């Protein structure tokens, strides 16, 4: 399915729509950007309808309805206005005084969004950000999209027909390189969500001069110095288990400020029952995840029987596991409550984290108060963008930046007029 000009077309119409697209985009650009007030107004109205339960029939799984309510709340006028002020408020915008040129923020123009396939509301959210900055948005849906995104925008356009020419949604498969290239050729900027493969593929497609905005996958970790109290460990365990370690901000590795293997092993033994308790509260239901946990546990049991010493010590738990590692590299854990524990003395933070500089985002930090400033500084200097208490690593805040920048500013450009 394709959404273009407010109408849902069959996938077969793609060639005709793509052929027409460059001309259509020029017409829309000539007519001017959508009024930000109109965008906020309709999103706010949409949010209220979502909270009102108008769209509950779209979603059959009750647990996902809670997610929908969350989405509704983030579309509230206040939230959006605050987002605009924070993300664009700092950008210069002043008239000419006759001597110096006028400075004006403009939308980038045409923005292509390549959405990741693993979170339902993400494609729509990316387009909403593009709209708030005033852009024309071309969205390439992930293969896994359930049809919700197109339904959402069709509804939005029926409420505010002026947005019709600013939202295009394509379900072009990623293997349709020609179609993808035509979309990329139309864009002033490409916002790409996804793993290394998706980002690299888009880098090849973008022409020189096309702005690439990469929201790639990140690796979260936790840094503990000293002896963290019980409640810190409890919060960290709940964070690890409840996010399933699936988010960019989820904790994959727990680093301890030490170079002693005995100390990290002792920590792992202390942490395991805490992690088990959290796993009891939020049991893993996904078949694949359960299978993965079972395989790892079983393999470790056999390895123990073989008597071969491996560089890792595997501690199986109920619905979770901890692996004590001999190395200190930041890496993806097997996820679903399978956390890695490694030693990292504080003077090694920068060299070790720099090895993964493109993947840094969130660090959970616990340390004695007198060390806080120094360690925070060190983490930030190595490239980390968020330093938070261990249990709150995935928390979001109003006015928060994304991977070190404001999306709306990325989707804008500064113009000068004299």
């Amino acid at each position, binding site marked *: 399915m394709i959404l273009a000009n407010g109408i849902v077309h069959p996938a077969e119409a793609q060639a005709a729509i793509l052929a027409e697209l460059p001309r259509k985009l020029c017409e829309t650009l000539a007519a001017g950007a959508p009024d930000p007030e109109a965008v906020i107004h309709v999103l706010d109205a949409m949010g209220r309808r979502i909270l009102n339960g108008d769209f509950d029939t779209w979603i059959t799984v009750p647990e996902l309805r809670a997610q929908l309510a969350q989405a509704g709340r983030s579309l509230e006028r206040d939230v959006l206005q605050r987002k605009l002020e924070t993300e664009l408020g700092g950008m210069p915008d002043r008239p000419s005084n006759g001597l110096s040129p006028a400075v004006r923020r403009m939308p980038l123009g045409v923005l292509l969004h390549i959405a990741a396939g693993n979170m*339902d509301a993400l494609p729509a959210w990316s387009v909403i950000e593009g709209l708030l900055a005033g852009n024309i948005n071309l969205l390439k849906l992930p293969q896994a999209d359930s049809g919700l995104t197109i339904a959402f925008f069709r509804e939005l356009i029926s409420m505010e027909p002026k947005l019709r020419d600013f939202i295009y949604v394509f379900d072009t498969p990623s293997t349709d390189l020609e179609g993808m290239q035509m979309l990329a050729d139309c864009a002033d900027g490409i916002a790409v969500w996804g*793993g290394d493969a998706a980002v690299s593929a888009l880098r090849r497609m973008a022409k020189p001069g096309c702005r690439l905005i990469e929201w790639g996958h990140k690796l979260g970790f936790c840094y503990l110095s000293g002896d963290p109290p019980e409640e810190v460990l409890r919060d960290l365990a709940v964070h690890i288990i409840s996010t399933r370690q699936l988010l960019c901000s989820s904790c994959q590795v727990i680093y301890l400020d030490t170079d002693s293997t005995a100390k990290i092993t002792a920590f792992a033994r202390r942490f395991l029952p805490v992690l088990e308790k959290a796993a009891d509260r939020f049991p893993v239901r996904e078949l*694949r995840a359960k299978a993965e946990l079972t*395989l790892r546990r079983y393999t470790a049991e*056999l390895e123990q*029987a*073989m*008597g071969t010493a491996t560089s890792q010590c595997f501690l199986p738990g109920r619905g979770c596991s901890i692996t004590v590692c001999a190395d200190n590299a930041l890496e993806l854990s097997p996820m679903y409550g399978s956390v890695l524990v490694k030693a990292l003395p504080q003077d090694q933070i920068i060299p070790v984290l720099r090895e993964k500089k493109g993947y840094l985002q969130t660090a959970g930090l616990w340390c004695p108060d007198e060390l806080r400033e120094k360690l925070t500084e060190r983490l930030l200097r190595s490239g980390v963008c968020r330093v938070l208490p261990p249990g709150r690593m*995935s928390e979001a805040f109003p006015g928060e930046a994304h991977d070190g920048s404001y999306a709306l500013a990325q989707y804008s450009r500064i113009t000068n007029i004299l």
Partner: protein
Amino acid sequence: MRSAASRLFSSKDPFDTEKTDSLFVDAIRENVTFHRKNCPAYREMLAARNFTPDLLTDPDSLAKLPCLPTLLFKRHHLFSISEEKLPVRATSSGTGGQYSRIGLDWKSLFLGSKMVLRMAQWRELLSLRPTQYFILGYEPHKGNEMAVTKTALGSTFFAPAIRRHYALRWKDGQYAADLESILAQLQKAARGIFPVRFMGFPSYTYFLLKTMQERGIRCILPRHSRIMLGGGWKAHIAQQVDKQVLYDLIEKVLGVKQSHVVEFFGAVEHPILWTDCPAHHFHVPVYARVLIRDVQTLEPVPHGQPGLVNLLTPMIRACPLTSILTDDIGILHDGPCSCGIRSPWLELCGRTGLQDIRTCAAGAAELLKGAVS
């Protein structure tokens, strides 16, 4: 007296699992006894789980034999015959960075070739007509020990080869895709009188045919042409190709009927040539048995229920590959099938775990909070 394995691999009907059940158990016991004697690590693992070969008495007892996860072969080199004495060594393609290293001994190779011939004969792949082969995979060269490369090469001996065209050719020290020359040669071969055979990854085959379709190229292949698919459906491309879509595309672009499309499946840790039936089901052959195990307790589950796929075969003596626990989720379905084979068939439903992290943004995280509870 001939070994049980040798008798098993001489079975006339490659799918009469019922009649060969007790012979299979004997062959497994023989094989386990051999590995237990010659591979100390394997002996330790069996001992730790209180297993002795005499526990193998009937088909139900096969579940008691400890199965070895493929992950174990990726981390350790387990051999029952010293590596230097082995005529064939192979590695897995190494999705995810780690790969298994195994070997084949002369006796296993002999049994294996009997199996391959039997399967090829049953699927009407043996032919004396000279054939042009198109291999949508790697050209063999000295440094390439990947099993898929060896299987692909092996499949070009079912009918005498006039020429083998490779999509991934070894040039200047690396593999490079050569789509244009493959297309040109394919068009030439289509005009000839000799049958054409494809062998390759389903995803590569799909990609080639899709390109041809987009360019409006149709190559109706000569009579007796065959399409062989192997190497898995997902390993080499993020996107999953629907089987039926591929069959339809093959018929449209190459004019080859669906029943002349043959798919193979196997793993370096389980080198049995699983061959699909004309209805495209992977029936359990006499050479192997399958147990589907509960994802939590690892106990066998009844047919029709999903679980971890445990593959058993007594074929290999070089490495303790008797009972392998894969990281595939699968379902064993009871026959009968429209093809007439009565043995159950295995459906693979994908890998365990999640291969990639989900992306998230500060804004999106707020949107999506609660997604995981």
